[in-house]
């Protein structure tokens, strides 16, 4: 008798690091949440999820561990929507039939939590868009076809599950090595919370005001917010005791969606990084100076050539024949060390998802969108930005208790007359 064998997918380059990091307790989930105007109808959402999931084969998987490599295997288990109980950001994805994402609901909020094991932020937002469109269609609203949105009935393309990194570089052996970073960067010195948990501070800014401010400086919104973030890190350094105050540079990374340079329909990870640095050992930087530094770094590095060398190096290390024969548990140990080392070289990450697009009929249902970064165990703090309609939501998740940096950022934003509404609460409320 013919035995049924589920399909398997190889992990891509970014996912290889994340498969080493995930454990029973830590799943490194980031969250995209949508606040509707009305409470969620649970049956419609469940139906929408069931309709959407077959369209995204990479989401319909579970993580498996082999002897030498981890891989994704097709998962036909019934996907359940869960109650949004707390901002722990994750669950045990090593459990049998566990999906590498979860859809959680509380009141008006639908939140998708997923990880870089399967997708990046752009693809995750596309998945959520599809679910939301199906949800609205089930409410009885007739939706017109939109090219930017993948619907459940849109024909599937083979390229969507392809590894974009590998299809991009065939001759990665010939590429030069990227320049080495110079040592460790400043990190939040406070300890992680025990027991482990995530705290959140969100700033809601008016998008038009923020854009006009960025225009007045002649920079983009990402550059402006990164400059604010770096400036508040510099402010935070003043609170340190004098002998520890300005000993390391501040380095903030911006993830970049590589689809803008290398056209690809892949729905898996496809990101590169741009690193901004100021060194307060040389002197205190004014906001204008920081803005110029960030702006010019962005201008210099935001070309496809900058990312070639990084991708080439990562792929080269994947193809060393000796590496293939190392057992998985040893690989995980090594990868954890590599990840910890690279984490120590950066202060934080600010990722801008950009404008969250929804068709107009669907957008009428939605009040605002939130994008919350995954908790960082070494850097303690991460920042992410998403905008919808006229609201720009800047979320900072932190794993330590004190919030000095958030206070400085609030003061900086207030000083720039952006009038942020600060929201420290996202999760469960009794």
């Amino acid at each position, binding site marked *: 008798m013919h035995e049924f064998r589920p399909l398997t997918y190889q992990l891509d380059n970014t996912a290889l690091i994340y498969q080493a990091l995930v454990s029973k307790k830590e799943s490194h989930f980031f969250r995209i949440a949508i606040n509707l105007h*009305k*409470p*969620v*109808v*649970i*049956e*419609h959402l*469940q139906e929408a999820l069931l309709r959407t999931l077959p369209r995204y084969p990479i989401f319909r998987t579970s993580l498996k561990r082999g002897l030498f490599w981890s891989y994704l295997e097709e998962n036909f288990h019934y996907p359940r*929507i*869960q*109650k949004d109980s707390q901002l722990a950001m994750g669950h045990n994805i090593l459990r049998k039939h566990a999906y590498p994402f979860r859809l959680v*609901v*509380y*009141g*008006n909020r639908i939140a998708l939590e997923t990880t870089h094991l399967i997708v990046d932020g752009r693809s995750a937002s596309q998945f959520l868009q599809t679910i939301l469109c199906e949800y609205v269609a089930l409410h009885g609203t007739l939706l017109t076809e939109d090219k930017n949105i993948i619907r459940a009935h849109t024909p599937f393309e083979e390229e969507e599950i392809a590894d974009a990194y590998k299809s991009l570089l065939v001759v990665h052996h010939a590429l030069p090595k990227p320049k080495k970073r110079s040592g460790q960067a400043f990190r939040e010195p406070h300890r992680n919370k025990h027991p482990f948990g995530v705290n959140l*501070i969100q700033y*809601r800014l008016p998008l038009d005001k923020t854009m006009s401010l960025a225009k007045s400086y002649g920079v983009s919104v990402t550059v402006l917010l990164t400059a604010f973030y770096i400036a508040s890190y510099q402010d935070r350094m003043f*609170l340190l*005791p004098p002998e520890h105050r300005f000993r390391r540079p501040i380095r903030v990374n911006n993830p970049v969606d590589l689809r803008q340079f290398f056209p690809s329909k892949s729905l898996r990870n496809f990101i590169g990084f741009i690193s901004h640095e100021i060194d307060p050992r040389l002197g205190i930087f004014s906001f204008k100076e920081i803005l110029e530094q960030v702006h010019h770094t962005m201008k210099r590095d935001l070309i496809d050539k900058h990312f070639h060398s990084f991708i080439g190096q990562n792929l080269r290390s994947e193809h060393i024949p000796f590496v293939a024969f190392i057992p998985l548990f040893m690989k995980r140990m090594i990868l954890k060390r590599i990840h910890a080392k690279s984490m120590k070289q950066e202060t934080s990450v600010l990722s801008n998802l950009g404008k969250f697009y929804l068709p107009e009929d669907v957008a009428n249902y939605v009040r605002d969108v939130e994008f919350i970064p995954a908790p960082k165990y070494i850097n303690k703090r991460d920042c992410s930005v998403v905008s919808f309609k006229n609201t720009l939501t800047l979320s900072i998740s932190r794993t330590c*208790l*004190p*919030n*000095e940096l*958030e*206070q400085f950022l*609030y003061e900086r934003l207030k000083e720039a007359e952006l009038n942020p*509404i*600060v*929201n*420290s*609460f996202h999760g469960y*409320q009794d």
Partner: protein
Amino acid sequence: MTYCRRCRIIINSESTTHCPLCDQILIHHDSSENPETLFYEWGNLKKAHEHPSFWHIPMPISSKKVINTIFDFLMMGAFSAILIVLTVSIYAGNPYHLDIYIPIVSLFYSIVMLAIIRFYRFSLGAQWLMLLNTALFLIGIDLKNKVIEWSTSSGLLIIFGGVGPFLILQILWRYLKIKGLNMIAFIFLAISIALLSLDASLNGGVRLQGWSLFTFSTLLFFALLFLHLHYIAKIRVNFVPILQTKRDKGKDKL
């Protein structure tokens, strides 16, 4: 149409009795009650910066933490040093004789113990580390003072024979999927082995008295009986849900 008060979601079908997310029993209200108006208060954003707790800057090192650490250190150091010096000197037959190296070694021992407790917080690994540390400490004393022979005579037996089985029991409790009659069998086995090794250590590690052999044989019989019931007769009882419900009931009372 009904709604769950806890999850604040709408459930369309009237026939549903429990919330699909939190399993709360649903009360079907009048149709005049509108969930959107019921939950309106929650819709307002909480302004964090208007609350004084947002502007609170904690001290870099709290005095409480410093005092706690110092007291921990002093208590552990003093206690273990006194205990070890006394026991070793009594064993050597001279209660007033104090070697210089023993307090130093015991201080080092207490520092290592303190570090293990601080970093591993009494986890299973920490317990193993503490046992190993104690064993190494005893061997170290024996090597220095050739008269004592504490570790070879009874120390290692007490550590690995008396306490080791209970640690293995903990590991089994953590990793066995079905925790039923087999766990009772393993508990009996652990107790019997521990008693046997304690008896051996009391008699200098050579001879065994009758009582420990008697308890060992009877407990072994019961252990084998339970193992047979679990693995061969396949009478599968799982204690975990029963224990959990008891724990939850206790929480409710609190």
